[in-house]
């Protein structure tokens, strides 16, 4: 894809544990901010895609109440019940099809409203796992970490160090909810133990938040300053959590391969300047290095230890602090796209990395990252 669809504006609200507003007003604020940032009016939007989940939102057809706040009244609208990064995919196809020029994508959820990790448990096989109460998003991730550690020889300290890196980066991001300036692995390991090796600080804190992206066709983006072009996209669905090998992220690799083919990326480690990864747990970032082709299989720990992915490294990953900084589910991956776009535009503020021309953004949905999507974004 060469300069066919651009991200022309975006907005995030500060992520909070319990923000003082309804879901609807939260979405309205993110929507309005994104449209204003694009220099547009509601009337200019052709299509609106919301990304959220009925169980998180605690109501069936949860998009129905977002018609007004997402600016989609009388618009061509739909809902993707996956992370907002998949909403961007749907909007992208709507623009590429030629039927639409300007799209708004909104991702949202409020952890202060929903019942903890119950929505995730409701994703499990209802004929067996669901009511056995052994698996949930965190315990399943711990099993994934265990399998990965055994296969790749990665230690809990290395995983903790990934969390420390991201929490330290998050201290520079004004939108982040959780941050720890100068954090180290020791501090992460000493936080509340959940399911070994996972401790509290290795998990992405579920919170309240919404973010929005405005996308435009080449025609509509012609007058826009600093458009961020979508150069490639790939996504893939993996097997159910008990039916796949948990020591690697197979569907992320498939997604990345498809995305790179489209974007003409042959050597990601040298051609990508920065990556924003949707790591719901710290170890997933190490696994993502491998699947995204930044290093060889099972070398995630070694690659991390090289310092390459630090803010001052040659391929910074999660300069924003990533999902470990804030995790408003269904908005988290979309925020990765926004952060990558900010870096390309040079608008990232204190966590800006110099000279970012080409960036990767990753989103995921499901238990142990069952669904993955990868974007390559670039400037002029």
């Amino acid at each position: 894809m060469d300069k066919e669809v651009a991200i022309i504006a975006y907005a995030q609200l500060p992520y909070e544990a319990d923000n003082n507003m309804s879901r609807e007003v939260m979405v309205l604020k993110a929507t309005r901010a994104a449209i204003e940032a694009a220099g547009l009016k509601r009337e200019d939007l052709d299509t609106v895609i919301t990304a959220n989940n009925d169980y998180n939102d605690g109501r069936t057809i949860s998009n129905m109440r977002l018609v007004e706040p997402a600016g989609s009244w009388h618009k061509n609208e739909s809902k993707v019940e996956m992370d907002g990064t998949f909403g961007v995919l749907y909007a992208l196809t709507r623009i590429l099809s030629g039927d639409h020029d300007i799209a708004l994508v909104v991702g949202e959820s409020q952890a202060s409203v929903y019942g903890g990790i119950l929505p995730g448990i409701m994703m499990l096989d209802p004929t067996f796992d669901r009511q056995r109460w052994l698996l949930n998003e965190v315990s399943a991730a711990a099993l994934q970490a265990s399998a990965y550690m055994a296969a790749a020889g990665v230690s809990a300290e290395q995983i903790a160090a990934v969390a420390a890196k991201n929490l330290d980066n998050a201290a520079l991001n004004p939108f982040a909810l959780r941050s720890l300036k100068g954090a180290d692995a020791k501090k992460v390991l000493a936080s509340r133990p959940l399911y070994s090796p996972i401790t509290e600080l290795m998990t992405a804190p579920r919170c309240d938040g919404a973010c929005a992206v405005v996308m435009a066709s080449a025609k509509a983006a012609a007058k826009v300053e600093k458009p961020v072009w979508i150069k490639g996209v790939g996504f893939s669905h993996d097997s159910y959590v008990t039916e796949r090998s948990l020591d690697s992220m197979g569907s992320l690799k498939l997604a990345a391969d498809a995305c790179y083919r489209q974007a003409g990326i042959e050597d990601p480690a040298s051609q990508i300047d920065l990556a924003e990864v949707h790591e719901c747990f710290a170890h997933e970032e190490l696994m993502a290095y491998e699947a995204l082709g930044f290093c060889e299989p099972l070398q995630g720990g070694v690659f991390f230890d090289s310092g390459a992915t630090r803010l001052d490294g040659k391929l910074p990953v999660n300069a924003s602090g990533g999902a470990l900084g804030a995790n408003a589910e269904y908005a988290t991956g979309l925020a990765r796209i926004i952060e990558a776009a900010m870096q390309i535009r040079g608008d990232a503020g204190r966590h800006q990395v110099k000279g970012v021309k080409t960036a990767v953004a990753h989103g995921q949905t499901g238990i142990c990252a069952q669904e993955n999507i990868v974007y390559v974004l670039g400037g002029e």
Partner: protein
Amino acid sequence: MEYKNETIAIEGSWNLASWEWKFESIALIRKTFEAMKNERKLMANKCPGCGRVYFLPKPYCLCLSIPDEWVEIKDTATVTTYTFTGAWAYEGIADDEVSGTPQIFAGVVFDGSDTKTVTMLEGIEPEKVHVGMRVKLKWPEEVAGGLTDLAHCVPLEE
């Protein structure tokens, strides 16, 4: 393998009781209820962006503004939609199918607002109700400050 038409059922549930939603509308509607009780007034909120007036008040507008101006609206209204329980008046419907006290429910738009409120119509035969007919709120003798105060409307003689 013997094929069964009825297989084991695993029981589970969605503990929706653990969900706790947030609504600005609760506070806004409470304000309106208080004004009804204390001043016998219908207070609505008006959108600064497009001028739409919401009754009962609503925390956001479809034009992406936040309605935050309080305005008083009238207690006269126009019917926009309706239904009945008990269809005693209609063709081919036998008396024995009517159960309970017949009631006419109607969606009405109070004068000065742009939105619908659901109410019950009194003092009119169901076959005479029509979209566009004019009605008036029947204030209860004692205003409780709640939705029940808005529960009854009567035809407006104009």
